[in-house]
């Protein structure tokens, strides 16, 4: 016993500072490498074109300019795209939170025939990749005359199986006594749902909300195929159409646009940090 103590004490005190410093330096170098693309966006956005195109290239600007930002707002309907992104991602998030929690409530706390089967059907739809149903979804939206409209953009994602499933797991774990007391007092089922059950799952709603907002804000494929009118695109699809293989935007303007595209989620992320990571890690497990 004492031999073990001595050995482990020696192990921890012999080279602790060197080991710690080494681990720290490795982490620091890796962090720089990982953050380089983010850094290049942030710096290039403020660089004048002459400096961006100079050789050899450098990281730190010698002169700063806001010219790239004025260009992106004058050369593109950028304010419009920004607004569209907020409406699309925000709209999907709001709808999904309401519809998913309603459905999840029924699946978790109301006993009706066929509930188990319905749950299995909903959960198995998690295995269907969105990319595989893209064509019929587009056709349906087109058939409804909803191409280039917000309802057309939002409706296909206004409820989703994963959100229903996630919230159901939270609802199931709440004690039944909570709502039975309210029911005995004569509260309607909707009131029980809205004023008693929902406030108890706020963390789950926040989690699902962050996940849905991030996913839709960053999505490319759906806005890309869905909007034929450039005025109806999102930031992500709008920038992509002007860059990419047939790109016409100069790097400075592109980076200014990218910085603005990243900023809302970046700020949300820095403000919430741990909470945000937990959310994405929990919900990102969608298969």
């Amino acid at each position: 016993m004492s031999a073990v103590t001595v050995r482990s004490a020696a192990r921890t005190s012999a080279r602790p500072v060197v080991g710690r410093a080494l681990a720290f330096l490795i982490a620091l170098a890796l962090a720089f490498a990982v953050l380089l693309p983010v850094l290049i966006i942030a710096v290039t956005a403020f660089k004048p074109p002459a400096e961006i195109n100079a050789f050899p290239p450098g990281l730190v600007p010698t002169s700063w300019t806001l010219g790239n930002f004025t260009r992106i707002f004058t050369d593109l309907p950028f304010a419009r795209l920004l607004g569209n992104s907020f409406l699309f991602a925000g709209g999907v998030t709001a709808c999904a939170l309401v519809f998913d929690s309603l459905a999840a409530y029924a699946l978790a706390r109301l006993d009706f025939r066929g509930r188990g089967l319905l749950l299995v059907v909903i959960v198995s739809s998690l295995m269907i990749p969105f990319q595989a149903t893209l064509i019929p979804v587009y056709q349906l939206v087109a058939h409804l005359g909803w191409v280039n409209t917000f309802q057309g953009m939002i409706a296909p994602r206004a409820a989703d199986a994963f959100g229903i499933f996630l919230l159901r797991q939270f609802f199931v774990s709440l004690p039944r006594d909570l709502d039975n007391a309210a029911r005995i007092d004569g509260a309607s089922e909707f009131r029980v749902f809205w004023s008693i059950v929902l406030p108890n799952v706020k963390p789950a709603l926040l989690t699902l909300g962050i996940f849905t907002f991030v996913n839709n804000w960053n999505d490319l494929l759906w806005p890309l195929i869905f909007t034929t009118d450039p005025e109806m695109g999102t930031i992500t699809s709008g920038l992509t159409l002007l860059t990419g293989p047939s790109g016409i935007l100069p790097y400075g303007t592109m980076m200014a646009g990218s910085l603005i595209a990243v900023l809302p989620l970046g700020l949300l992320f820095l403000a919430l940090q741990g909470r945000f990571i937990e959310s994405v890690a929990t919900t990102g497990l969608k298969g």
Partner: protein
Amino acid sequence: MSATAQARRAYRAPAQLGGRPRRRRGGPRTARLASAFLLPALVILAAFVFWPVLSALRLSFTDSSGFGAEHFVGLANYVEIFTTPRILRTLGVTTMYAAMFTPLTIAAALALALLLNRKTLWGRGFFRTAFFLPFIISMAVAAFAWEFLLDPQIGLLNYWLQSAGIHLGNVLQDPNLALPTVVLVAVWKSFGFYMVIFIAGLQDIPGELYEAATIDGANAWQRFTNVTLPQLSTTLAFVTIFALIAAFQAFDQIYVLTGGGPYRTTQTVVMEIYQEGFKKLDIGLASALSYVLLVITLVLSLIQFRFFNRREEAIAG
């Protein structure tokens, strides 16, 4: 609630289906009430998930172009996929992509999770945030940054590599390097997510196991191979399948960086679905290819469910 507990709850959850004690069924009143709560979500899912899945299957047996008459063509579209080298190759490209993406992402994520799991590391919180940051950036925007960094004339990364004697040239136009490059962009963006899952898994390993191994004289590498890896096996299996599924859906950064080129060396299945379905309007072929993707994903998901269940049984038993 900790990240660990939440992550565990989410990925154990499928096995809990039907695991609750039975309750007395409600009557028709409950059924009516339940339908009211369920209606909006079920309408959306029926219209935009279940109907499209069936519709895509039907379209895959037709020569539909989205307009005019369409005819039943049997398995012709599937035959075309598996006999036309040009199209078959998109499956090969996607498999290559997955074969590079999955091990690289998992290795990077696990290495960084082990680094961040050291309780003595200075600035752990900062590093966790830094390594996770790429995950919240859209793949398209990440691709813009990488395009600029790799620009053969004025790209900073290209310049640094040249200074170090590595002359890569225009990687995005190089048939040998374009696919590895789009893979690296995806690894860069996603590893932080897998890292967080691994950290949760590492924190679940009982400390006594390491103490016991140390007493038995195991060195750091032996502790890793004999304690960490076996204890992480379920997380590893889960993460591997998850990464494979993600890899088979690769699209965004490829669309931005290479458009599928050069010479279709980065033309993945989803790129092909997009081009056949929305540019060439060969809806039948694109639908058949969608179903190939669906079946691949389904098989991977079913393997994943098996892992869940085995783990649940292990815990319950």
